[in-house]
């Protein structure tokens, strides 16, 4: 038996892990998938039913009376908080990448880059703690009331600013968590552009920023798109930070940008205890369906981004090893 044939099965564990996650979640949640049908993703009603009654048969499934599961509010909140994070993170990431690649002396560059990339090393729950203990008091007392007063002309910016827990706070925290990914990938891509491009533009009399903005940056377009998609994937699945600053809304669509939310990932953490109260197990299986939906979304998003990066010929992904 050759070394290659001994190695291949051990190496395949990484692939088996991914397939195993999808298959086992799929098998476990299959009764829930059949029971909930398509209304799972379009209805806005997560209701465990009457937990003190006896289970009843409903369309061939044993459930608690009145139980139904619809997670539209989770999907909306997940997408909106991710959207806010990506919209804020892309300009921040590109701006800081430009600054780090061309705006600082080469001696300082690794250190300043490392400092920003440390943002990716801070654990999710520490972001949650920071948001909970430091950011929310500031936002709820000062920033949000100011925004509601002075930015009220923007849709969804007016209205009750609530307690500080909510969509915009989650968006801010998520922004910081995904920015390093964009910064490090973009900075590497900007640096690795051919020197000749830069020299040609400068020789034509372009200023240094014009060179960067009109010549170098456009040639990294695909890396920017791919790294933004990767960042999107990370924001979609972020759990602890959103759990701690999201505010924990149930069956409730946000009516303005300050409204409390729960994302799919945070919902799984916060609801398992109550789902276990359901003796028929349908609630736990429906939570598994939430996990399955989240898993499939992130596989698609990440797969698309990776393929894009492979085909743009850009191999060293995500900079300092944190991506």
């Amino acid at each position: 038996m050759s070394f290659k044939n001994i190695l291949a099965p051990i190496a395949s564990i990484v692939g088996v892990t991914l397939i195993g996650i999808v298959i086992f979640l799929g098998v476990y949640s299959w009764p829930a998938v059949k029971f909930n049908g398509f209304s799972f993703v379009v209805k806005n009603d997560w209701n465990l039913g009457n937990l003190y009654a006896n289970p009843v048969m409903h369309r061939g499934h044993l459930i608690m009376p009145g139980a139904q599961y619809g997670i539209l509010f989770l999907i909306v909140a997940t997408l909106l908080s991710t959207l806010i994070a990506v919209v804020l993170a892309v300009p921040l990431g590109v701006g800081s990448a430009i600054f780090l690649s061309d705006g600082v002396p080469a001696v300082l560059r690794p250190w300043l880059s490392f400092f920003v990339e440390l943002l990716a090393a801070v654990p999710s729950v520490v972001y949650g703690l920071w948001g909970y203990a430091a950011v929310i008091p500031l936002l709820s007392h000062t920033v949000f009331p100011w925004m509601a007063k002075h930015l009220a002309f923007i849709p969804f910016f007016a209205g009750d600013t609530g307690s500080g827990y909510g969509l915009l706070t989650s968006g801010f925290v998520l922004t910081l968590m995904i920015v390093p990914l964009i910064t490090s990938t973009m900075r590497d891509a900007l640096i690795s552009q051919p020197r000749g491009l830069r020299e040609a533009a400068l020789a034509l009399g372009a200023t240094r920023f014009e060179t960067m903005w009109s010549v170098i940056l456009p040639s990294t377009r695909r890396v920017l798109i791919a790294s933004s998609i990767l960042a999107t994937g990370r924001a979609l699945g972020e759990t602890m930070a959103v759990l701690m600053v999201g505010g924990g809304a149930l069956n409730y669509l946000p009516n303005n940008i300050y409204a409390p939310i729960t994302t799919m990932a945070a919902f799984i953490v916060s609801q398992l205890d109550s789902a276990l109260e359901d003796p028929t197990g349908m609630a736990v299986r429906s939570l598994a369906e939430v996990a399955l939906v989240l898993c499939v979304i992130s596989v698609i998003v990440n797969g698309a981004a990776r393929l894009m990066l492979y085909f743009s010929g850009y191999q060293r992904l995500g900079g300092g090893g944190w991506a």
Partner: protein
Amino acid sequence: MGVSAIDVRAAINQPSIFRLVQRKIFNSAGWGLCGLTFLLLGSAMVWILKMVFVRGAGALNLKVLTHIQIGVAGGLLNAIEGTLVLGVGGLILSVPPGIAAGIYLSEYDGGWLAPVLRFMSDVLVGVPSIVVGYFGYVTMVATLGWGFSVAAGSIALAMISLPYITRTSEVAFRQVPRTLREAGFGLGCKPGTVIMRICLPMATPAILTGVLLALAISVGETAPLIYTAGWSSFLWTGHLTKEPMGYLTYAIWAMITEPQRSAHQLAYAAAFLVTLFVLVISVIARVVTFRRSGWGQHA
């Protein structure tokens, strides 16, 4: 009246002052905005570090490090122990297959399996950690009946760190010069000997860096552990299954939402320990990487 060649030349040689000023402003404003974004990120980093280290240092004392938790007071010894046990357990499970996958991706890149595995590994990085945690819950904790346990928590962490170790091992093996392999084959070595006796020792420092980073990620994770390792205020008695385990990240989350001041102190102390550990590992890994590839080059 037509435009003569002289007019055109004059226009090229002497662009309008207005246009010059406009370009100057664009240049300065561009750099200014880019510098501002960097400053914004940097100050957020400083803010987080300041909060964690100032409040954490105030909450840290010998009792926190040497006593187990009692209700909302006491110490964090049980959580510190749990974090180390789960982190090391995850590494023991993920390092061998991770390095094997790294070797395969680097050395046998020709066939169909390597690209597929690389793609799946990259996608696995993006699978949310809570999905891995819930997977662990439905399979190991519920179906296999292990209960909240060290085994389930370690396996969940191993699944998280596996793709990172795969990636860094692949890069480490690719950095070994081709001529070394050729020399080995030229002396009549078999592929297994070349890889294990020539390439592996060369790649070990880089692989260790990757393992350290994976440990940092494991120590910082919460979501995959909540429903696999559970939570316990007691020290570990050595059982792999049916015995829940405490860990620092859970203490941060659970204690900060309690009303008591003693609970908050524990949360900040735990945050201090976790963040310090993760940052120290990141700095070590970065310095090691610089040493190897030259300062400044590895920007």
